[in-house]
């Protein structure tokens, strides 16, 4: 299994071991200091809720309600930990698996599924949530994110020392995206312009079925050095470490310190998408190894050891998760397909003669078909 790459934890920033013990780190302890039991409970709650949502969406796909679903299973610590480090001015450029980050940005979770039911390209207001629409083209958004960060700098939103004003961009992508030219180009621009951006790589060890060892010889974090971008390799299943590292990186970027590359080393516990069968390219032993390192179990163990995770709280969160599941199911089933001419609605912000002509033509084209059959 040489192709499966390093499992070694040695050079990973870790604050919680996989058995839930708090360990100290010389650089990042202070960025976790402010995270009290209450804050950790919120993280535990978010991780639990997003996992329930993820499972519900997987079921909905299996029941024919969604065309495809992209599971975030196993990556909750990387997403919730980093998401909790964001402030109001920060802007997120996700790829398509960042459901956990979406939750921290207040996106109404069922709305995410419109894309996966094939109804809309994106259903939330990116400006309101400071959370861009999902980008399905691998790595393409890294350039958009860098451009946005450069613009924030030019708009005077960086390095003023005023927390009401300063902000940064965080761009999420996977290990597979690091093989795309776009990502390297983005780092070139980010570095030379000292753009306020954090490149957050969730290295879940597979680009669909391609193991990371077939994509890089060196740990991905080492790539930053070539661009003179400071880089950190963090345990992606350690929510506390992910949080601390991201906080450091964002504070640095907001204050005008320039870009940071974070490699969160994690594991995609589910399939790439519901159309994928991971048993064809990884072993049960592998899956069992990573099941022991489940990011929620780790925080659960730590909070329990502190006596900070009461049964009441668990029950409340379980009810909340179940509620979200039911609401998601009902919402999705209640959606009607958009009319086929809706695709012309948002091509331009203002009326456009060509689009109008095409819409008119398309309406006539649709009328050339016999009446649609009625579905039960």
């Amino acid at each position, binding site marked *: 299994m040489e192709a499966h790459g390093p499992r070694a934890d040695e050079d990973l920033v870790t604050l919680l071991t996989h058995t839930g013990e708090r360990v100290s780190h010389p650089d990042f302890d202070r960025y976790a200091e402010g995270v009290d039991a209450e804050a950790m409970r919120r993280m535990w709650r978010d991780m639990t809720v997003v996992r329930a949502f993820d499972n519900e969406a997987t079921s909905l*796909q299996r029941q024919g309600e969604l065309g495809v679903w992209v599971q975030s299973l196993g990556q909750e610590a990387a997403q919730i930990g980093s998401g909790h480090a964001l402030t109001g001015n920060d802007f997120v450029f996700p790829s398509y698996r960042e459901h956990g980050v979406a939750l921290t940005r207040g996106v109404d979770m069922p709305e995410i599924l419109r894309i996966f039911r094939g109804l809309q390209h994106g259903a939330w207001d990116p400006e309101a949530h400071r959370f861009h629409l999902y980008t399905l083209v691998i790595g393409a958004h890294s350039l958009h994110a860098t451009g946005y960060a450069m613009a924030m700098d030019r708009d005077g939103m960086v390095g003023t020392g005023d927390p009401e004003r300063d902000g940064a961009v965080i761009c999420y992508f996977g290990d597979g995206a690091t093989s795309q030219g776009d990502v390297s180009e983005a780092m070139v621009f980010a570095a030379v312009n000292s753009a306020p951006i954090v490149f957050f790589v969730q290295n879940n060890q597979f680009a669909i079925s391609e193991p990371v060892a077939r994509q890089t010889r060196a740990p991905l974090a080492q790539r930053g050095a070539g661009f003179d971008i400071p880089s950190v390799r963090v345990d992606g299943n350690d929510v506390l470490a992910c949080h601390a590292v991201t906080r450091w990186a964002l504070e640095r970027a907001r204050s005008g310190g320039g870009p940071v590359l974070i490699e969160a080393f994690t594991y995609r516990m589910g399939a790439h998408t519901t159309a*994928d069968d991971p048993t064809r390219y990884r072993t049960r032993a592998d899956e069992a190894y990573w099941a022991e390192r489940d990011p929620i179990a780790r925080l659960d163990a730590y909070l329990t050891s502190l006596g900070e995770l009461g049964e009441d709280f668990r029950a409340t969160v379980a009810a909340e998760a179940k509620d979200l599941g039911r609401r998601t199911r009902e919402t999705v089933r209640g959606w009607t397909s958009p009319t086929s001419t809706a695709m012309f609605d948002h091509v331009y912000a203002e009326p456009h003669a060509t689009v109008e002509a095409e819409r*008119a*033509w398309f309406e*006539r084209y649709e009328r050339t*078909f016999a009446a649609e059959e009625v579905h*039960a």
Partner: protein
Amino acid sequence: MPTIETFHMPDAGEGLTEADIVTWRVAPGDTVEVNQPLLEIETAKSLVELPCPYDGVVVALLAAEGDTVDVGAPIATFDVDPGGEAPADDAPVAQDAVVAEAVVAEVPVAQAPAAPEPAPASSPAKVAETEGSGAVLVGYGVKAGSAQRRERRDGALDPIGGAEDASEYPVLAKPPVRKLARDLGVDLTTVTPSGPGGLVTREDVEQASQANSARSLATYAADDQPWLESGYSKDGGRSTRVPVRSVRKRTAEAMVKSAFTAPHVTVFHTADVTETMTLVKRLKADREFADVRVTPLLIVAKALLLAVRRHPEINASWDDEAQEIVYKHFVNLGIAASTPRGLLVPNIKDAHRLPLHALAAQLGELTALARENRTPPTSLTGGTISITNVGPLGIDTGTPILNPGESAILAFGAIREQPWVHEGEIKVRWVTQLALSFDHRLVDGELGARVLADVGRVMSDPSQGLVWG
């Protein structure tokens, strides 16, 4: 009342068309809840467990283990309101009957396709919906006969932006094409577009313009038809009237203004231009002139510039309002050109400063631009003296009308081999006619005559240019 819901085989991958049923995890009569394991299926990609979509009671399993089922086909029914009357076994059949009835009602009888299949295990309606474009997983192929097309009504469809749209939207044309249409006096709304998306192209405009030009009069239409597309027929079909537009209109105004404000006088001169023809031939062979066109017009232009240098008073204009004569310190040399837009007189700015090669280059550019209909507006204003080259049309000479604001115009006629007395003998020589019209308000006959004589002198003996240059 029992409420029956049907579960259809989902597409568990992306673009799959069928799946095998491996194991049922429930049996009819079982009470089930949402997301409990329902069955296992095997697709072209993987073994997948399908969770139960409903809370309720399993009514019927519609496919057996081992069956291959089309995506979209019903595989199980559930009573989601088991508190009501006990569900009958024929519930799904009743469901399908409703579907079939609705389909029949929706399709106009005349165009009814082969009546909807009496829905057996697989409902084509649902298949068609799920399959959409018929997309299929790369590498797995489409199951034979699985492709479904939506039923079409009769009737062809116009292209986008076709006739039906014409009135609803402004004409689509790029700015240069709009300008061309304006210059040619073509109304864009009357042009049939041939470009993508109903775009009017340059060719469309040119074609429309041609249809509007007198050159298309070769065949006479029926008497009540106008000869020109832009015109209309009157007098019982005995004439065609065309609104005066664009260049034609401006030409008319300029000519009237010029002819009836400036008293024209024209003087003529016949010249032996054999030496000019020899010079043209030599220059054509000269490497320094390899990149430009050398023509007799170039020499006559140079000759006129030399004449103006000796008689600058000819390069002037009459300012009627100020009651002043304006002598120009520069020569913007106009060359009358017949262009697709009509008669234009673009001019070469500061032509008096140009050496012969540069003059040739500018003449070439001016001619090319005029021919391509790309004459810039700036070269149509500010002329000071002009040449009209009537020779290429085979005409000996004429009495040209002055370009408004100028006081002289030279007509350059055809150059022909003619018997000519040369050094005391009759020889075959290259001979041409030169005519100069001038504004008699400020140019006396003598001045006009001297200018024309000087032009003739240089044409007869280009070496005179060395003396005057």
